[in-house]
């Protein structure tokens, strides 16, 4: 029996992706805490390892060593399904991201569509977590998560669609190939509004401050993951950070020229750009207060959506006129 080469490639990529997700989560947690510390004029983690570099690892170990608790009256299946469900789609998402022409786990023609479709699954996990844990705070958090994610998906899609219109493809590799090495050849120059809409929407999609309402600490204690302990919480946590990496990677592909950069193209440009975007996300989180729920939806329906539609129509019109 001949094993198709494509299958081997996917399996290898999947294993690599798992390691990569874990590594990224650790690195990102460390970066977030360090950035936060420096913004607040304190050192951040400092004691475990040189400059606290292995602190996230130790924290992960601590999380694993804790007891897995399930509250009385919780729906056991949903309760345990939720963290797993939040993690698995993220792994798939990583598969399709083109880090460089060679470093692409799985090249699909509809890569963009796949990513957006699977990213939508995350909200289901949040809903199950909030609903299944038999906790009122969790319920409120889940309700917030659903309406927020559903709402912010629309401008996100519209912004991405503008790029798809322009490049005429949904294949991520080709989108990158359509851009040049120098910053002025990137899509962000042509589509600045789409980039801004995209960036705002991913804050809402990934529940990051100032749109972190589903887990708003000062209002809902911990929102949908109030009742999770140990790795149940750990998986949500990892998935959140992995999601951040995915959406920022997609932003890099769509708007910032992917692996292309001045002088030497390659995966290092990809990583650098992704991490710059992540840094901006963290910076925003540690600067702003949280918006209120109705304001959050108002921003979406009254500002982002009309702007995204206008942007899309404008793109379509210009494409028709100049093409």
């Amino acid at each position, binding site marked *: 029996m001949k094993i198709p080469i494509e299958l081997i490639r996917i399996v290898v990529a999947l294993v690599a992706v798992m390691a990569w997700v874990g590594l990224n989560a650790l690195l990102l947690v460390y970066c977030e805490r360090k950035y936060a510390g420096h*913004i607040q004029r304190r050192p951040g983690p400092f004691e475990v390892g040189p400059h606290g570099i292995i602190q996230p690892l130790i924290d992960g170990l601590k999380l694993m060593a804790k007891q897995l608790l399930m509250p009385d009256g919780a729906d056991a299946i949903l309760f345990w399904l939720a963290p797993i469900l939040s993690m698995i789609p993220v792994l798939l998402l990583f598969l399709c991201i083109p880090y460089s022409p060679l470093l692409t786990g799985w090249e699909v023609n509809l890569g963009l569509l796949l990513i957006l479709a699977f990213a939508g699954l995350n909200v289901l996990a949040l809903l199950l977590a909030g609903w299944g844990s038999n906790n009122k705070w969790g319920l409120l958090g889940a309700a917030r998560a659903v309406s927020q994610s559903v709402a912010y998906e629309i401008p996100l899609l519209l912004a991405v669609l503008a790029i798809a219109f322009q490049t005429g493809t949904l294949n991520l590799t080709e989108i990158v190939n359509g851009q040049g090495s120098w910053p002025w050849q990137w899509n962000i120059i042509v589509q600045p509004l789409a980039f801004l809409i995209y960036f705002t929407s991913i804050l809402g999609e990934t529940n990051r401050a100032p749109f972190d309402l589903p887990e708003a600490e000062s209002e809902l204690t911990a929102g949908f993951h109030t009742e999770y302990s140990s790795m149940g919480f750990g998986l949500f946590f990892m998935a959140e950070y992995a999601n951040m990496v995915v959406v920022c990677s997609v932003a890099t592909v769509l708007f910032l020229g992917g692996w292309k950069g001045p002088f030497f193209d390659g995966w290092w440009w990809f990583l650098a750009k992704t991490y710059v975007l992540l840094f901006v996300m963290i910076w925003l989180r540690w600067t702003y207060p949280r918006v209120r729920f109705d304001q959050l939806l108002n921003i979406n329906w009254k500002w982002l959506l009309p702007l995204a539609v206008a942007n899309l129509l404008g793109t379509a019109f210009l494409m028709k006129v100049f093409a």
Partner: protein
Amino acid sequence: MNAIRKNVIQPIIDLWSLIVGLKVTGKYFCQRHVTVHYPRKIIPAELTDTFAGHIELIPSAKDPTIPKCISCMMCATNCPSNCIKVLKQKAPKVSPEQEKEWAEAEARGEKVKRPKAPKNPAKFSYDYSLCSLCGTCIENCPVSSLRFSHDIYIVATDRKELTMDLLARLARQAEAQAGKPADRAPGVLEQAAEAGQEASAKEA
């Protein structure tokens, strides 16, 4: 015109306020942080000198191991939290023969010097876990034998450790002052403090 102002210009001004916020946090991100890295560095002594920690006894001028205290009990009775316990010293035991001799001498009309109990306390225990650091004991001591220590680094893993024997503490201090080897190895804190001082000296 008003509509344009409300719907176009105002949102732009509002968005600008967000950029201003980012500028502030960005500025601090690039600045040095203000945390003192304890225990590698410690805060300057002038800050600990004004701190009022637990109470301690002041040694008398003659003997640094003996406090000025005259066991008058003012502190123990006036403490609102009842955290001081002072035990007076008993008069030394006298043998019956000695007693008899003195009685005879008195009968002869001579003056006898009977040994009196020493004034300094036999025991001075203090429960830091109860103390409210109000200073009543210090203000009411007739011989000013009490003061606040400046020990900000005190730690305990057990409530019982906070009940201190202040006389023993005084003896330890006296020993340390006399340059005798202390009866315990220097703790982590003291080592850290020294290292910190060295480090800050080097930096300066």
